[in-house]
Each structure stands twice: as structure tokens, then as C-alpha cells.
């Protein structure tokens, strides 16, 4: 016997929630983010786009005779840091997405659907 599962009875895939408004919001977000990065700073603080740990914390600490040490595992070498940040973003994003889906999706018991169809 061939068992069929109606697509309407399955959990709603997450992209369905996006809709046109979602796509529009996403595009606006991307445009804003790009513009934000391209626009020149109003008040440049030393090296362009340095983190506040460099432009504030390390700068003030250096004035008082304290300097940052190399990290124990120094990934700040060439493109290695780029790789670990990308990896961290991707892994963190997937974990977040996995749990978000687990929290928000409507669970439909597959066995119950199969029983209904039979």
C-alpha cells in the first residue's frame, strides 16, 4: 500500500513565513548595511573602522603603561582570523536557526498523518 502525506498537513516550511514583505525587508537590510559600510565616517577615530578595544581600551591602557598581550591561541594571522570568524558566524547561525525552528514550527506527528491517510 502506498502511503501519501499531503503537503498541506506537513509543518509549514520556514521560508513560507517570509512572504513579499520579508523579502523586501531583507533587501532593505542589505542595502542599509552596504551603505553603512561604504559611507565615510563623520568623525574618524584614528585607524578607520578599528574596534573600540583598539581605539579606546588599548589606546588608554598604553598611555598608562599597559599593552595587550598576544592571545594564547593567536588566530590573528593573515586570513586565518577571517576564516575563524566566518566559521563562527556560520556555525552560530546554523545552531541559532536550528533551535529557532525547533521552537517555532508547528509539529505534526508523521505517524498520525499516515494513520489518517490509511
Amino acid at each position, binding site marked *: 500500500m502506498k502511503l501519501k502525506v499531503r503537503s498541506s498537513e506537513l509543518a509549514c516550511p520556514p521560508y513560507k513565513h517570509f512572504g513579499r514583505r520579508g523579502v523586501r525587508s531583507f533587501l532593505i537590510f542589505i542595502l542599509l548595511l552596504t551603505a553603512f559600510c561604504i559611507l565615510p565616517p563623520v568623525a574618524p577615530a584614528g585607524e578607520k573602522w578599528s574596534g*573600540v578595544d583598539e581605539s579606546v581600551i588599548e589606546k588608554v591602557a598604553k598611555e598608562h603603561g599597559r599593552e595587550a598581550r598576544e592571545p594564547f591561541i593567536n588566530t590573528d594571522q593573515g586570513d586565518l582570523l577571517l576564516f575563524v570568524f566566518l566559521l563562527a558566524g556560520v556555525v552560530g547561525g546554523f545552531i541559532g536557526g536550528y533551535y529557532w525552528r525547533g521552537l517555532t514550527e508547528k509539529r505534526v506527528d508523521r505517524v498520525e498523518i499516515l494513520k489518517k491517510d490509511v
Partner: protein
Amino acid sequence: MGNTKFGTRRDSKVLLSSVLPTAYCSLLTVSNAHAMHISEGILPFNWAALWSIIAVPFVAYGLYRLRKLSAVDLSFKPLVGLMAAVVFIISCMPIPVPTAGSCSHPCGTAISGILVGPAISILVAAVALLIQALFLAHGGLSTWGANIISMGVMGSFAGFLTFKALRSMKINMAVSGFVAGLLADWATYFTTSIELASGIKGDSPFMPLFWKILIAFIPTQLPLGILEGAMTAGMIVLLYKKRPDLLVRMKVLKAEEAV
């Protein structure tokens, strides 16, 4: 999840829609890995040790609360997992601030403090900070305790207490979330200023150095605090729409408000 068949064209679209934004954000943020945490070696040993000792009971209590709540409510674990991912990603995502010409990042501890409680939020922040210190050259192992206190303890408690106080005054949930996020971010940098000023002052007076550091943070953190507030409000409103029952269970909402 178990009833969805993967590998179809639709799933490829879903996969792309999740991977592309993540990759785009990650690629944009990698040029400046450093952002806010106190780096390795900045604090003298005695101050670094003191902040670590202060942080230990908070982290231990967070562990205790996690074990206790997870044993009672199984749906608590996915929420903690989600919050851990959110805090980790947000706190290692430097955002360029054009008004300052520098980068910094939000903390994410306001939203986690509100949703899972400040104790577990501290634990989540501690884990995120440890991973960043170990592998992302972000923060440091010797300054781990100081960073837990500023981002984990102060951020979580400021967010949680502000949200509770505003909600008890019957203020709208989005506004309460916004102010909680804003104050949590600013409280984090306020504490960082105290930690840094007390650690590096030497023989010079504390207050002028504290104000100097705090004022130096303002051009970057003022707009970022607003961004953090907007993010916190957005996440709470989204969860309210998707899972109001979860907010009731986490005591963020009263049952009658969720209807």
C-alpha cells in the same frame, strides 16, 4: 523537523536563504576582529584575578539554574541553545558606526537575560566569551572574569531588571524591550570603563580616568545601544507573535496578556 524531506529545490532555497545572510554578515565583519572586550594582558594580574573571583559565583549559580530548570521543563533547552547562539554571534559581530569611524558590537545579554533569566544569561555569556578568547583573538583568558562581569553580569541584570520594572509599570512590551536592550548595552560599557580605569590607573586618580574612558566610548556606543534596543524589542515582539506560551512559561508575560 523529522517530517520534512530534505534535498528538494525548496529546501535548497531555504538553505540558501539562511546561509547567504550569515555568510554576508560574517564577511562584512571579519575585517575588524577586535571590538569591545578587554584584551589579554591589559589588566594587571591582581585586578584580573579579582574580577575572575567575583565572576565565579555568578557562573556557578547559572549552571545550577540551568540544571534545575532543564530538569523541570524540556522546552527550556532549545531556548537556551538559541540564546547561546544569539549571544555568541552578536557579541563577536563588530558593527561599523559611521558617526565614530570605529566598530563595536552589541552584547545580546539583554534579550537572553529577559528570556532565560539573568543567571543563565551570565552562563551563556561566559561560554561565548570563552570561545571568543580561545579561538577568535577576541577578549582574553586572563580578562575573562572582567568581561563576564561587564557583559554577562551587568548586561543581563540591567536588561532583565529594566524590562521587569517597565513591564510592572504597564509599559508596552516593545518599548520595555527597547529600553532594556539600550540600558544593558550602556551598562556593559559603563562597567568596562570602571574595570579598565581601576586596573590601569596606577597612582593617578580614578574618576578622571573613568570619565575619560566612558566619554571615549560614547560616539560608538550611543548609536550601538539604540541598535541593541531595537534588536531586543524586535526579538521579543517576534517571540510574542510566534510563541506567546513560551513567554508565559519564562514569566516574561502573564497568561492573560498572551491571549
